[in-house]
């Protein structure tokens, strides 16, 4: 009772990375609260799935396995969780901020009248003083998230309602196995007791999972390369940095014309206009045709060998140097500072 629960997403029989990251965080929270960590997996053909989960320090794995439960649809997963949470009364429940977690989480929170905070970037345990009612709450979950387009960071608490629910995006928390030998309990749920026939009114009739399409227009961080990047090999370094810091890669027209990147990544008058919170311009001189598509970026870092490049007029940070030298250093320093 009153433990930390993590909803584990399943894709192709594998527990999603985001869920394993949450289990890692959940273990830490459970240790801080001196309670247990429990996981719930809902899907089809889940035999042995606990082997993927327990090494993260999970004390109980709840399994609801039924062929109707995969692929995910909202209502049966909601019913199972709402009923199980009603019985087990977790104090904290975490889900991935994915198209599943962000579909399921609010539905569950609405049914249980519990508070849910989306897209948290940090979760820690702390006390809260309600000055107005002169009441002190011990060991609440601080749900920390950016809001207002990333211009503010808010700390949210749920003083009275349980569970305290939060979603977190993939890659925000670290994934770390506690011990391959960690032993927890497995509890199979009798699915029939948890779902109703009406829960299956929505049916998936077709499904194509594919590599996601390029989406630089809505990216929060863009690393854009210009002709000055110099080679396709150097351009690959931009992708490496993008992977590490969670960015999309864009390009100037000159870079697209040189064959370094495809047209769908082109930013500027003949490409797309972007307004990310961070724009890293690499080897881009800063012709008006390019800057017209990025000048509303909140923050600009310009990396260029020419210290008088016009792009520097738009920059908040100017780094005069070679892409092949600067980008690997940025990757290395990012990793060292996020350990």
């Amino acid at each position, binding site marked *: 009772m009153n433990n930390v629960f993590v909803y584990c997403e399943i894709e192709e029989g594998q527990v999603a990375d985001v869920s394993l990251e949450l289990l890692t965080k959940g273990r830490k929270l459970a240790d801080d609260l001196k309670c247990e960590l429990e996981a719930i997996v809902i899907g089809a053909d889940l035999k042995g799935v606990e082997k993927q989960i327990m090494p993260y320090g999970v004390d109980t794995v709840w399994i609801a396995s039924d062929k109707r439960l995969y692929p995910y649809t909202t209502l049966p997963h909601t019913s199972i969780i709402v009923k199980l949470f009603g019985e087990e009364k977790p104090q904290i429940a975490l889900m991935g901020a994915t198209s599943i977690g962000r579909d399921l989480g*609010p539905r569950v929170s*609405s049914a249980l009248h519990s508070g849910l905070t*989306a897209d948290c970037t940090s979760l820690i345990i702390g006390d809260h003083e309600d000055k107005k009612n002169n009441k002190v709450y011990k060991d609440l979950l601080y749900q920390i998230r950016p809001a207002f387009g990333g211009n503010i*960071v808010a700390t949210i608490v749920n003083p009275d309602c349980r569970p305290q629910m939060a979603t977190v995006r993939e890659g925000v928390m670290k994934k770390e196995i506690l011990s391959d030998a960690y032993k927890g309990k497995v509890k199979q749920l009798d699915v029939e007791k948890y779902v109703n026939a009406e829960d299956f009114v929505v049916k998936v009739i077709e499904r*194509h999972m594919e590599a996601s399409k390029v989406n630089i227009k809505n990216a929060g961080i863009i690393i854009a390369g210009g002709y000055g990047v110099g080679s396709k090999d150097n351009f690959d370094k931009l992708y490496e940095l993008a992977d590490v810091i969670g960015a999309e890669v864009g390009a100037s027209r000159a870079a697209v014309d040189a064959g370094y990147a495809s047209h769908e990544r082109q930013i500027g008058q003949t490409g797309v206009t972007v307004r990310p919170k961070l724009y890293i311009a690499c080897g881009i001189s800063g012709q008006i045709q390019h800057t017209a598509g990025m000048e509303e970026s909140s923050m600009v870092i310009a990396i260029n060998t020419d210290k008088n490049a016009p792009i520097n007029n738009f920059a908040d940070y100017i780094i005069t140097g070679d892409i092949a030298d600067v980008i690997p250093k*940025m990757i290395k320093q990012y990793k060292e*500072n996020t350990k």
Partner: protein
Amino acid sequence: MKGLKIVVLAKQVPDTRNVGKDAMKADGTVNRAVLPAIFNPEDLNALEQALRLKDKYPGTEITLLTMGPGRAAEIIREGLYRGADNGILLSDRAFAGSDTLATSYALSCTLKKMGKIDIIIAGRQAIDGDTAQVGPQVAEKLGFPQITYAEEVVSAEKGKIVIKRRLERGVETVEGTLPMVVTVNASAPECRPRNAKYVMKYKHARAVSEMQNADEDYILLHNNRPYLNIGEWSVNDIETKAEELGLTGSPTKVKAIENVVFQAKEAKVLEPTDADMGELMKELIANHTIG
């Protein structure tokens, strides 16, 4: 064939996408004056899906429902200019301080009062909060099923709805029953522009709270043309439990707000060294730009 009854949930939001360097005041608070209030972008994608259903199924009626202060009537007019049939502004001090759950409660009480509805369509999320919670929370409170992340409503006939969804790693086509709550992604087609004919018809559409200083001629105009009166509902027009409204009805509380103020006013010049790159990364992580 009888048309559909569709309600589009829309929100007026500050335009957080166009935040420039002047968006924060010197004292570190958000400078709302420089952020224009706009029709939440994904709600426009939602409206377009509703309008396409209206094109396809004659007799369909689209009502725009928004909760907010009096000035939010502006987005109802925007909806009317594009082809919505009418709108309701839900406005009351009792809703102040609502988190997503209390908002969903107020909206669901309003929707219950609106009679039979086939489809409720909303944007996936609003750009001021980015939570994507209100759609599913409303669905749960109404006992309706939901289909989120919709990119296209393929059809809605004979009590069934077929929808194409766009997920992180793929697409899905799902079929469900009506009534249904649908939330629409930004990847769905953009909303059609204003229609000049509707702009002429509805440019004087006003909610009650916008009519307070109106002169007699203007009141007469509205009396003669009832379609110019935008419905405005207060807490008294719907059945609610006071303890579920506003701040009291909100399980989540804001404990602290930290403004992410960009410090460097002038460009900082960095050397391509490990030391400088380390400092840069620390700064970007500290102000939550990355990480």
